[in-house]
């Protein structure tokens, strides 16, 4: 159906030259390849058992039903903790992280970009430097820090380690750089205080960056298993992604629970897709300012 719509739109565009049509055809073929696993997960989740293991396998479902979802809830019901608890944890942690990361990042990016306080260059070059490191590499010391802080087995153990996201501060700072200084100066002249400048000028003007950071933050926290595996001992504190990973243990060549796992994967995937669809236009706008430019390099050298 989508393809037909695409084709119709294509026909309405007289400006496409031969080269563009060639590219379009190539990209359509490639997109089908890229989207195949995703189309497939939708179908797989709705397949009854009789269709899951037939030969030759079919990508598209013939008799869609909700059997897999029922099984998923059944699997969870037989364990001590209901699946709704995992889902609640996931939603709670993700919403909290998205709000937290966005707020903390924009709060930090604003002075770095506009105040030029002593040391702002050093702070920013450290952020650039850590952009290049993955926290996964230092999991063990992170574990030690979390246990020393006494936030093991609490929701803080889920939130706080995610809160420091150098990429989001970086994107925010680059975006705030585009806001003209005159706008801020004018507000000062009108007698605005720092907080009102922040609330009424900076925040409304960098909504695209906020949306982008929100997407990235959601992706990071929604599918995060690290905090659940390492920092949570009680099962009722773990999130849905972790529950999913227990379902898929030894899934290879294993018939049982494949349907339930597919249903769970769909539940994992859908929020990501919707949030991205919702914000994606803003994301491209922000990314235009994402470049790492010259001044930071010199800052990095002096650091």
């Amino acid at each position, binding site marked *: 159906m989508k393809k037909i719509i695409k084709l119709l*739109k*294509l026909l309405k*565009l007289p400006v*496409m030259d031969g080269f*563009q049509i060639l590219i379009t055809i190539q*990209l359509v073929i490639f*997109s089908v390849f*890229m989207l195949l*696993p*995703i189309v*497939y997960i939708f179908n797989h989740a709705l397949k009854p058992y009789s269709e899951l293991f037939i030969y*030759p*396998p079919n*990508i598209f479902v013939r008799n869609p039903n909700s059997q897999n979802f029922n099984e998923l809830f059944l699997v969870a019901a037989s364990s001590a903790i209901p699946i709704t608890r995992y889902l609640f944890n996931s939603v709670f942690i993700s919403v909290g992280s998205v709000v937290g990361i966005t707020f*903390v990042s924009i*709060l930090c990016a604003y002075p770095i970009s506009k*105040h030029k*306080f*002593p040391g702002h260059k050093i*702070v920013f070059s450290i952020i650039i430097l850590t*952009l*290049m*490191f*993955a*926290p996964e590499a*230092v999991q*063990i*010391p*992170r574990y030690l*820090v979390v246990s020393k*802080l006494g936030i093991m087995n609490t929701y803080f153990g889920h939130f706080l380690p995610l809160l*420091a996201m150098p990429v989001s501060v970086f994107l925010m700072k680059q975006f705030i750089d585009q806001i003209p200084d005159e706008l801020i100066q004018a507000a000062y002249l009108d007698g605005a205080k720092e907080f009102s400048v922040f609330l009424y000028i900076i925040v409304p003007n960098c909504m695209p960056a906020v949306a982008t950071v929100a997407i*990235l933050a959601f992706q990071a926290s929604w*599918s995060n*298993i690290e905090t659940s595996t390492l920092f949570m001992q009680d099962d009722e504190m773990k999130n849905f*992604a972790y529950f*999913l*990973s227990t379902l*898929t243990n*030894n*899934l*290879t*060549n*294993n018939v049982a629970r494949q349907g339930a796992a597919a249903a769970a*994967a769909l539940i*994992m*995937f859908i929020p990501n*897709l919707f949030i*991205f669809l919702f914000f*994606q236009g803003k994301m*491209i*706008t922000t*990314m*235009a300012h*994402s*470049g*790492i*430019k*010259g001044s930071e*390099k010199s800052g990095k050298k002096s650091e």
Partner: protein
Amino acid sequence: MTMLSNLGKRFKRFFSVIWEYRLSYAFITPFMLCFIAFILVPIIVAVGLSFTYYNAIEPPKFIGWTNYQNLISQDLLFLKYALPNTFKFAIITGPGGYVASFILAWLISQLPARLRKYFSLAMYSPSLTMGIAMSIVWLPLLTGDRIGYLNSILLQIGMIDEPRLWVTDKDYLMNSMIAVSLWSSMGVGFLAMLAGILNVKQDMYEAARIDGVKSRLKEIWYITIPAMKPQMLFGAVMAIVNTFKSGAIGVELSGQNPTPQYAGYLIINHINDYGIIRFEMGYAAATSVFLLILMYFSNKFCWSLFGPKGDEG
């Protein structure tokens, strides 16, 4: 006396400047606290622990360079599997995913604006399935019996005569890992590059055409890439980080930890193996530091490619 009062004055001036900016510092405090606690301190602790023997029960014992010496001279698991596997994985998925992102971004940028949205969504959506969902998406496609989609297709067209164990055979696991990683590599870096290409001013191309740049390939090389170097660098940094941090993928695909005959064993797996399973934290920390250094030099290399040249900085 005058010296002292001078020093005092300078201190006073310094503090008054700091005081003047107190709000700025207050603004960055929440981030900096988390940053210090969960990024900076862990890195410092990792470096510190890497010189010790620490089993998480007794206090750490200083043993100098021994961990590093063992790592690069005696640890067969590391030298025979983790290191070569990581290099193979990183060299193909890092630059491969990066180049693919750029080519796709460029192709999409050549299309009318209305179509761009759909294609960029199609390319980006695989990276939405990152983490655990990825293995579920791919497992049934790569399952080892004839029900697996890949096997069934290849059997039907006669490329193979018996099903292959794509994710549990040591000869295929690494290739499957690379394929899946490449599939999901059109992430943030891809969007950055797409935005960067779209931002290049049209009159630059027109000027170049007057100067005799004819082919599109030359346009890319002489105009597009130099004009979007900052985005290229951002994309490269993202590609490197994503490449080196992936470790779980082999375990997820094969469903076994460690992966069959260590075929998909990466440095991250090695760190987790020693840190979480064997509780040799000091040794795990030394491996982490090694990985961080590896990441740093890969990034350095990209800075030298796309960073501003000496006279600009």
